[in-house]
C-alpha cells in the first residue's frame, strides 16, 4: 500500500491551510481531482514542474514549500523574485512608485485580516 510522500504531506497541509477540498483545489489548479488524491496518498509519488506551479499558484504557497524544501508556506519568495526581475530595467521613480503601491496593498491586507478576526 502506498504511503504519502513528503510532497503529498505538504500538499495536504497546504490544502488544509487554505480550507479547500480536493475537488475545489483541482478546479482552481485546473488539474484532475483524482490527481490531487493520488499525490496526497502517495499513489503518484512525484509531480511535474507544470503541476507543481499550478498547485503552488492555486494554494498561494511556494514550490519549495510543496517540495519540502522550505518550511515557510508563503509564496513571497517567487513573487518577490518576479517583481524584482520586472524591475531590473526600471527607473528609480518607477521603483519608488511600486514600493509605495506594495506598502498600500500590504496595509490594506493587514486591515482586512484584523477586521476578519
Amino acid at each position: 500500500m502506498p504511503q504519502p510522500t513528503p510532497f503529498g504531506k505538504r500538499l495536504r497541509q497546504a490544502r488544509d491551510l487554505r480550507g479547500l477540498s480536493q475537488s475545489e483545489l483541482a478546479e482552481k489548479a485546473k488539474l484532475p481531482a483524482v490527481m490531487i488524491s493520488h499525490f496526497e496518498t502517495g499513489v503518484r509519488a512525484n509531480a511535474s514542474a507544470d503541476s507543481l506551479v499550478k498547485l503552488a499558484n492555486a494554494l498561494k504557497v511556494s514550490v519549495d514549500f510543496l517540495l519540502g524544501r522550505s518550511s515557510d508556506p508563503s509564496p513571497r519568495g517567487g513573487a518577490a523574485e518576479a517583481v524584482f526581475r520586472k524591475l531590473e530595467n526600471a527607473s528609480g521613480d518607477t521603483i519608488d512608485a511600486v514600493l509605495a503601491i506594495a506598502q498600500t496593498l500590504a496595509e490594506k491586507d493587514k486591515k482586512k485580516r484584523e477586521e476578519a478576526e
Partner: protein
Amino acid sequence: MSRAAYPLLARKRANRLIDELAITSFPVDPEAVAGAKGISVETHTKFPQGRYGALVRQGDLFRIVVWAGCPTLGHRRFTIAHELGHYHLDGHVEALLASSSTAVSNGSNYTGRKDPLEVEADAFASELLMTERFARPVIKSLTAGLTAVREIANQFVVSFSAAAIRLAMLTDEPVIVLLSMNRSMEWVTFSPAFREHDWTRRRMRGEWVPPDGATHALASSPKRVVAGEEASDRNLLSEWFEGAPATEAFEEALGLGPYGRVLTVLTCPALPSAEEIAVEEQERAESGTGDWRDALRGYSLG
C-alpha cells in the same frame, strides 16, 4: 510500472499538451509553447561543452536556456522541446533540480544516452515536434528512405536524426535507422515491421558497421562527413546484424557535419516475416543441406 513504459507516457503527455494548447498545425513552435506556460527562452553563448540546453528554476519561476551554438534550427527547437519535457514530466524537476539551482541536460538525441530522464525528455520532444496525428499522414505519403528523412526534417523543422527516428517509428515499411561515430553504432531504431524479429532485441550500441558498405566508406573520409555528403549501396541485412536474414538491404548514408557522425537508413523491401525465417531454418535443418551453424541459429545459442 516498468521504466521502459515511461517514454510512452512522455509521448502521451506531449499529446495532452498539444490538446491543451489547441495546436492544430505544424511545425509546432516550442518557444510559443514555453511562452504559453510562462517560461522564457534565453540564448547564451557560453555553455558547458557538449550541452545544448538547460531548464533553470529560480523560486517559482522557470526558464529555458539554449546554447547559441546549436548547429541547426532543428537542434535548437529540439533542445527547447526537450527542456519542456523536463518541465512537464512527473518527477523530473525533483530529480534534476536538487536545489533552487540549475538543471543542465544535453537537449539532443545525438549521444545515444541512457539516462531514463533524458530518454523520456527526448520522447516528449519528439512527440511535441512530430506528434503522431501530424507526422503519420506525412510519413504514409512518403517512400521510406533518406529522401523521406530530409522531407520530414524540412516539414517539421527537426534534425535529420530526429526525423529518421520518427520515420522508423511510424512507417509501415521495413526500415532501420542508425547513427554511427567512427564506424561504431551509437543507436539503432527498427520500424514496427521488425517487431517479431527476435534478433533486433540485442543491444547493438558499439557494434561495427560492415566494412564494405556506404556508411563505412563515408566514415572513412571525415571531410565528406563534415561536408554532409551522401553515399548509397546495396548489401545483405545479415552483413549488418548477426542473426538477421540474408535479405537485400538498400543502404543510404548521410554525413552529419562537424560532429563526425553518420546517419544510415536501411530499407529492406523483401524482409521475410519471423515465421518465414523460422520455417526456412527448420527445413534447412531437416534436409541437412545447410551449413550446421545456420541450422543452429534458430535456437538462439547466444
